[in-house]
């Protein structure tokens, strides 16, 4: 905490020495033993060393992304790069095999007329019930009375 002394007394070299050293990383002697800075109490040195080691470990484990050197792009550079990427994509896209056509073939040019014409005659429905019977036998009675007809018309 400091010490009291008379201004009349000339401060000794020891009293003038700061308590917290500027380079507070504990230095070790080549033989591995800790070397305390001269004239600092042992307890304080240990505490300082502990705090320093904690600080060092934390600093090593933290990744400071704000300090990363990120290149700032000018707007025109950004646009140029976007254009380059679009061009590359277009080239790659054209070199890929064409997607299989998923469009359905057009069946009629008069959809309203086709859809409004007479429904499947009941006689046709009856005629196809035998198909349903076969279906029932094959799938063990799991067919329903629903039937699908494809009309050529």
């Amino acid at each position, binding site marked *: 905490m400091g010490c009291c002394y008379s201004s009349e007394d000339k401060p000794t070299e020891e009293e003038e020495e700061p308590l917290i050293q500027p380079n507070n990383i504990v230095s070790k002697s080549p033989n591995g033993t800790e070397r305390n800075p001269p004239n600092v109490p042992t307890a304080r040195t240990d505490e300082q060393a502990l705090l320093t080691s904690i600080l060092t470990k934390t600093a090593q484990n933290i990744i400071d992304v704000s300090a990363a050197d990120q290149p700032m792009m000018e707007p025109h550079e950004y646009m140029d790069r976007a254009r380059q990427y679009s061009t590359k994509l277009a080239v790659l896209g054209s070199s890929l095999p064409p997607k299989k056509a*998923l*469009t*359905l*073939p*057009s*069946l*009629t*040019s*008069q*959809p*309203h007329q*086709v*859809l*409004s*014409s007479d*429904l*499947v*005659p*009941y006689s046709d*429905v*009856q005629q196809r*019930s035998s198909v*349903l*019977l076969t279906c*029932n036998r094959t799938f063990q009675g799991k*067919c329903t*009375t*629903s*039937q*699908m*007809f*494809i*009309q*050529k*018309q």
Partner: protein
Amino acid sequence: MTTAALTAGLERIPDQLGYLVISSEDGVLASAGELENDEHTAGVMMQMVRTASRFRLSGSPDVPFKRLSVILDDFVYTVTVSGHKVFVVKRQHNQQEPVNV
């Protein structure tokens, strides 16, 4: 063709209970009546008509039908394709009931 032009004729179909106009790329373009917002039925009908469109009669490259009818007990779905759009109309089935098996 505008959506209104597509649907105007469908509303005049006799005994119609509802309809769907479906695009293979954009999904349901229009719907009304009992099929309003019925995306499930739209999906099923699309699959059915895609499958049926693969049928070919021997020696012919064309699709051998103009209309697909799905006949249920009380109603019928009639489906056709025109201009890359699938039209589905649900119509009342007033005929005598088919034989139940």
